[in-house]
C-alpha cells in the first residue's frame, strides 16, 4: 500500500523547502532526535510490536477506512521510522511528506495511546516530527503566521496593545446596555481572578467576551483583564512545536498575573491553551506545576453554578449533545464537571458514543484547523466519524467547550449536513442565567 494523497499547496511548506538544503535538514534531525529526544523516542520505537491494536482508534483511519497509511503506527512508520532507517539522510520530498502527515493527519489527540498495550505515545512521536519541521522552517503558513504574531505581540492576530485597550472600552460600553454599571476592570491589582481571552474574542467573536463579562458581573467576581500584552491565552506555537515561543507566551501569562498580584487565572473555553498553560508550557519552563492556579472555563462555570453564584432560571429544552474536547477531558479529566454544568443548563441530553475520555477528537484540534484552508479537506475527511457520532444522537445542539472543537464541528455540520447548532457554555449560561432586577439597566 502506498502513500497516495491529492496534491495540496501550502507556501509555508513548499516555498520554505526551497530555502533549505539537505545539510540544514540533517542538522535539524540531529538536534531533535539526538539532542532533545532520548528515552521516549528510543523505547517507543523499539517497543512497538506492530500489532495494530491502535489502528481503529484513530478517526483519520476511520475516515479513510481501508487505507493503512492513516493508521497511528503507520504515521510513525512513515516519519520517525523512516528517518531512523535512512540515518537522517532524508530528502526535501521526504520532509514534505513528513510535514503533511504530522500537521494534517494527526491531531495529537492521544486516543491511540489509550489503545496501545504498551502505551506508546504516538502523539509525542508525531510532535517530534513537527518539531524538526519547525526547526527547518517548514510549517503550514497559517500556523506560522500566528506563531510569528505570538513571538512579537503574545497574541495570535497581530493585535497592538492600544487596540486591545480600545476594544475593552467599547465592549464595556456594550455591556452596559445589558448590565447596569457593568464593568470590565483593566489591570486591576490584587483581584481574585485574571481573565485571559481568546485572541478571536477581541476581534471577530467579541460576543464571547461580553458574555463572560456579563457572567463575571452577575456573579460578582472580583476580576480583571490584563492592561498589557499577554491578554490572549492562545499558544499556537504548541502546534508548530516552536517550544521557545510557547515558553515565552506562557511565561508572559504567569508574569502578568504575578505582577498584578492575582490569585488565579481564568480562561474561557479553549483546549490547547489550557493544556499548554497547565503542563506543556510549564514543563518547558522547568516548573513542575503552574505557579498559580490556572482555571479552565468549564472548571470556573462548575464552581459558579455549584456555589450558586449564578442562578439558572430556564433550561434549554431542545435535545443537546456534548463534545468532550481532548485537551480538557482526555488531557485533564473534566468530563464529570462538564456533565454537571450541562445538566444544570439543559433538559434533554443525549450522549455521544463513545464519550468522556474515550471520545473521538473533532479532527480540528492539534493545529489542524490552524493550518488553514489548504488543509480543510483533510480535517473534514478525518471528521467523518465525529459527524456520524453527532448525527446518531439526533441532538439539535452540540455543546463544545473549546474554540477548536466549536469551529471544527461547525464545518462538519455544513459539510455533512448535520443540522445542528454548535454552542459554547458561556453563550448558553449568559442566555439562561438570572439577571437580578437591580442590575438591569
Amino acid at each position, binding site marked *: *500500500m502506498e502513500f497516495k494523497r491529492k496534491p495540496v499547496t501550502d507556501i509555508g511548506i513548499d516555498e520554505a523547502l526551497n530555502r533549505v538544503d539537505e545539510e540544514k535538514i540533517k542538522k535539524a534531525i540531529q538536534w531533535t532526535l539526538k539532542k532533545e*529526544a*532520548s*528515552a*521516549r523516542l*528510543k*523505547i*517507543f520505537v*523499539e*517497543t*512497538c*510490536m*506492530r*500489532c*495494530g*491494536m*491502535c*489502528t*481503529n*482508534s484513530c478517526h483519520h*483511519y476511520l475516515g479513510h477506512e*481501508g487505507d*493503512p*497509511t492513516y*493508521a497511528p*503506527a*503507520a504515521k510513525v*512508520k512513515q516519519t520517525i521510522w523512516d528517518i531512523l532507517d535512512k540515518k537522517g539522510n532524508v530528502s526535501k520530498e521526504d520532509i514534505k511528506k513528513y510535514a503533511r502527515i504530522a500537521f494534517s493527519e494527526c491531531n495529537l489527540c492521544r486516543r491511540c*495511546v*489509550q*489503545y*496501545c*498495550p*504498551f*502505551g*506508546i*505515545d504516538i502523539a509525542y512521536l508525531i510532535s517530534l516530527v513537527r518539531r524538526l519541521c519547525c526547526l527547518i522552517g517548514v510549517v503550514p503558513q497559517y500556523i506560522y503566521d500566528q506563531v510569528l504574531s505570538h513571538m512579537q505581540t503574545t497574541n495570535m492576530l497581530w493585535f497592538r496593545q492600544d487596540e486591545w485597550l480600545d476594544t475593552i472600552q467599547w465592549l464595556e460600553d456594550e455591556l452596559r446596555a445589558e448590565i447596569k454599571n457593568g464593568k470590565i476592570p483593566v489591570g486591576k491589582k490584587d483581584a481574585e481572578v485574571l481573565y485571559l481571552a481568546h485572541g478571536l474574542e477581541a476581534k471577530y467573536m467579541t460576543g464571547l467576551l461580553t458574555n463572560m463579562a456579563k457572567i463575571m458581573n452577575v456573579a460578582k467576581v472580583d476580576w480583571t483583564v490584563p492592561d498589557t500584552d499577554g491578554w490572549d491565552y492562545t499558544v499556537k506555537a504548541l502546534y508548530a512545536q516552536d517550544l521557545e515561543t510557547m515558553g515565552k507566551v506562557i511565561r508572559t501569562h504567569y508574569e502578568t498575573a504575578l505582577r498584578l498580584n492575582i490569585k488565579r487565572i481564568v480562561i474561557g473555553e479553549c483546549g490547547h491553551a489550557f493544556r499548554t498553560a497547565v*503542563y506543556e508550557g510549564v*514543563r518547558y519552563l*522547568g516548573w*513542575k506545576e503552574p505557579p498559580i492556579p490556572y482555571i479552565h472555563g468549564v472548571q470556573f462555570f462548575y464552581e459558579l453554578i455549584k456555589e450558586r453564584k449564578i442562578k439558572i432560571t430556564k433550561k434549554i429544552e431542545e435535545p443537546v449533545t456534548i463534545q468532550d474536547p481532548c485537551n480538557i*477531558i*482526555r*488531557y*485533564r*479529566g*473534566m*468530563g464529570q464537571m462538564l456533565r454537571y454544568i450541562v445538566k444544570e443548563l439543559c433538559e434533554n441530553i443525549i450522549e455521544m458514543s*463513545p464519550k468522556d*475520555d*474515550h471520545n473521538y477528537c473533532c479532527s480540528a484540534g492539534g493545529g489542524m484547523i490552524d493550518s488553514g484552508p489548504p488543509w480543510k479537506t483533510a480535517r473534514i475527511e478525518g471528521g467523518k466519524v465525529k459527524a456520524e457520532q453527532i448525527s446518531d444522537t439526533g441532538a439539535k445542539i452540540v455543546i463544545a467547550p473549546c474554540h477548536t472543537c466549536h469551529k471544527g464541528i461547525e464545518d462538519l455540520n455544513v459539510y455533512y449536513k448535520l443540522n445542528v447548532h454548535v454552542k459554547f457554555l458561556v453563550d448558553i449560561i449568559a442566555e439562561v442565567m438570572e439577571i437580578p432586577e437591580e442590575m438591569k439597566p
Partner: protein
Amino acid sequence: MEQFLNDPSIYTLVRGPLVWLAFIVFFVGMLYRIFTTLKMAKKEKVIYPYLSFKYTLRSIFRWLMPFGSISMRKHPWFTIITFIFHICIIVTPIFLTGHMELWNESWEISWLSLPVGLTDLMTITVIVCLFFIFLRRLIQKDIRFLTSTSDYILLVLVALPFITGFLSHHELLLQYKIMLTIHMLSGELMLIAIPFTKLSHMFMFFLTRAHTGSEFGAVRHSRDY
C-alpha cells in the same frame, strides 16, 4: 559443564556452557537495558517528576487483566489469542518436567512441574497461536503495512524452540539427540535475543506503562486503558 569438559561435543556444549551463557546474557542484558533506559529517561525532565506509583500499578493491572482495557474489548479474538499465547510461552518452559530434571541435576533445585500431557498441549498451543499471529500479520492490511522482515524472523525465532521441543520429545523427524541439540540451541538463541530485539517488550512493557500510566492518571486525570 563437567559433562562438556569430560566429553566435548556439540551436544554437551549446548547442554552445558551455552545454557549458562544464554542465561547470563539474558539476565545481564535485560538489567543493562533497563538500567540504560532509566538513566536515559533522566535526561528527559518530564518523566521522573511525574511518575506515580499508584497509576503505574493501575495501568499495569489493567493491561495484564484479560479484557481490562477498552482496546482489548474491541479486539476480543486477538486478546484471547495473545493472552493464551503469553501464558503458555512463559509457563511451559518453566514448569516442564524435562527442564525440571535439568535443574535438579545441576542445581538440585526443583519446583512444581506440570504433567507432561498438559505441557505438550501448551506447546502445541504456542505454535498454533504463533501461526495465527503470523497469519494476522500477513493478511490484515494495516498490520502488514507496519511489518518488516525482522518481525517474521522474530516469529520464527520464538516458534523454533517450541516446535523442536515438541519434535524431540516425541522423537519425530530427526534423531532424538540431534533434534534436542537444535532445540536447546534455538532456545538459547531466543533467550539471548530477548534483551536486544523487540522481544524486550517483555520487560519494557512495565517501563512504558509506568510512564504512560502516570501521565494519564496523575497528570491528565484520565484513563489509559
